């Protein structure tokens, strides 16, 4: 409905139409684009589920600033720690959001950042452990017009 480039979708509403006219029909990444990124990184290796959690709002307050936190269960020792977490989104112009590289010195494999989301979409995170095993999870963030309630 709108893009990273203009006002967020909810800003357009309740209600002036003018902002929407600005929204160009930008190309979107999709689930396939996210899969292609994962294949580039990890080939056909299949991630397990569990161990990794992402915390994102169910409904974004502002598509331009959406908080994301990731946390992976791990003792974070030299032998057994989380190396990397990659975060992707399947509804932005480009699928990449961020990659976090942890070390045992972190003590805890958790990080937070803020991202732009152009529309309602899924956030995918994949963790690679020191032994090469992979774990992934997904969560949907709704980007809404909002503004008519209470």
């Amino acid at each position: 409905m709108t893009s990273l480039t203009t006002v967020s979708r909810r800003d357009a509403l309740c209600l002036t139409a003018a902002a929407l006219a600005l929204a160009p029909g930008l190309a979107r990444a999709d689930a396939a684009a996210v899969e292609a990124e994962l294949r580039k990184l990890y080939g056909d290796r299949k991630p397990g589920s569990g161990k990794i959690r992402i915390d994102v709002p169910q409904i974004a307050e502002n598509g331009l600033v959406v908080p994301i936190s990731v946390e992976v269960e791990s003792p974070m020792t030299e032998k057994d720690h989380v190396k990397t977490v990659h975060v992707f989104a399947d509804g932005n112009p480009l699928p990449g959001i961020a990659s976090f590289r942890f070390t045992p010195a972190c003590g805890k494999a958790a990080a937070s950042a803020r991202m732009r989301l152009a529309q309602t979409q899924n956030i995918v995170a994949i963790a690679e452990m020191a032994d090469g095993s992979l774990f992934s999870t997904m969560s949907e963030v709704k980007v809404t017009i909002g503004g008519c309630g209470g």
Partner: protein
Amino acid sequence: MVSRRELMQAGLAASALLAGSGLSAGRAFAQQKLTQGDILRFEPLGNVTLLHVADIHAQLVPTWFREPSINLGVGEAKGRVPHITGKDFLDLYQIPAGSPMAYALTAEDFASLAKNYGRMGGLDRLATIIKAIRAERGENRCLLLDCGDTWTNSWTSLQTKAQDIVECMNLLKPDAMTAHWEFTLGAERVEEITRSLPYPLLAQNIRDTEFEDKVFEPRRMFERGGVRIAVIGQAYPYTAIANPRRMFPKWAFGLREDELQKQVEEARGEGADLVVLLSHNGFDIDHKVAGRVRGIDVILTSHTHDALPEPVRVGQTLLIATGACGKFISRLDLDVRAKRVQGFRHRLIPIFSDAIEPDAEMAALIARHRAPYEKDLKRILGRTEGLLYRRGNFQGSLDDVFTDAMLEVRDAEISLSPGMRWGGSLLPGQDITFEDITNASAMTYPQCYRTTMKGAMLKAILEDIGDNIFNPDPYYQGGGDMVRVGGMGFSVNPFGTVGNRISNMTFLKTGAPIDANRDYVVAGWASINEGTQGPPIWEVVGQYLTARKTITPRNESAVKVVGL
């Protein structure tokens, strides 16, 4: 759906409410009015009493407030309380038709019962009830908790920036509150009020937008009757979406379920015997929270304005729903021993204004705050021949007045009015006063704009708001009821998916389908956009009523609900 049987199995002393008040005595007593003694009757239990008020919406004086005749549940909430209305509701709780509680809790026969039983609410009556319970139970056993939506949405609160309602609430001596519409006073004013508030505004789920620090105290520990009670505050998680974010630009909200779990665990770690969530999530979100967050004993719910005569139990958690606009207060007596709720007794206490002696001190304070505005409040704008009300999933007859007024006064083809759950009712034959209209519209962003929108845009709006109400996952629901529309009809399938709920959009002036590519002149109000231009909505409605003089509510609705 929670059956009657399940409610009983959950150990609910359902009959306590009815037997205690004489309400179950059957139809012979159906029309019998209650006395203050009936209203207060309660066999105390255990060591702690929680008193719960919610969604007062700054209503200092008694009002008419018709409960919804339609309140659909979706997903797991389908057919489950509070999504049961009318006769089904009366049957479920064995409330005799025509009785005081039937009048208080449903839309059945509302207009005629209202004439018999009178207005409900009024902080002076509420003060009487609270004082009586504290006196009977002992102040050191009682905890009074306010779920918020307290400081806004009356004319006097708008004019005084909530000073009137804040001073009156202080007289009630609550122990804690949380908030939602309060934030539309703007962050600065909220901070100014809370600095001098004699009790905390609790909110575990508000962070500053820089370093994610908590803006408000997340929880507080109280000791009552020898019980350590942790009260965790949960402000409305979607405040920054449903209301103008610019009014509190440095605050971010959200459900923050993980953090809530941590709060519960920390509270237990500090020795809490009882954990209470003071929540503005709304009932369906709280129902889900109760099933996912471990260790909460009681959730005091709000936002969705539901009034339930019995608690709903989810696992070990009790959910209490106390209605809106001062109509009720809930009393929950708990027997807490060995860090567990061993027993409870509950009553949804109706505030029948004719039956309860007003508290003199509160009555005087209310009168003092209203005096400067009394002339405005009493100003008669018109008269209604039929019942006017708002509350319900879809357009009420009072909403028709708003959407018709915008079409006429703003010379628009289509009008949009937000589906707020507050706003009282008017009885047939009643004069419509400025107070009646502002009770349904007083807010800090009231401008009635006039713009053009393509048909496709109108569809997108209806779909988006439809998904906020009818998403089967309550964590994805936000806002109020469905947007009200003038000049356009449509069908809505609550059980559809986003983008597929709305159909048959019709331009009523011509009967033609709404054209996705045509520009329509649209009027609306309560825009969350910065810089919205236009007269305040109460002026638009006032002008319309003054010209029209008499309102005759329509019987037919332009909204068709399909897929049921």
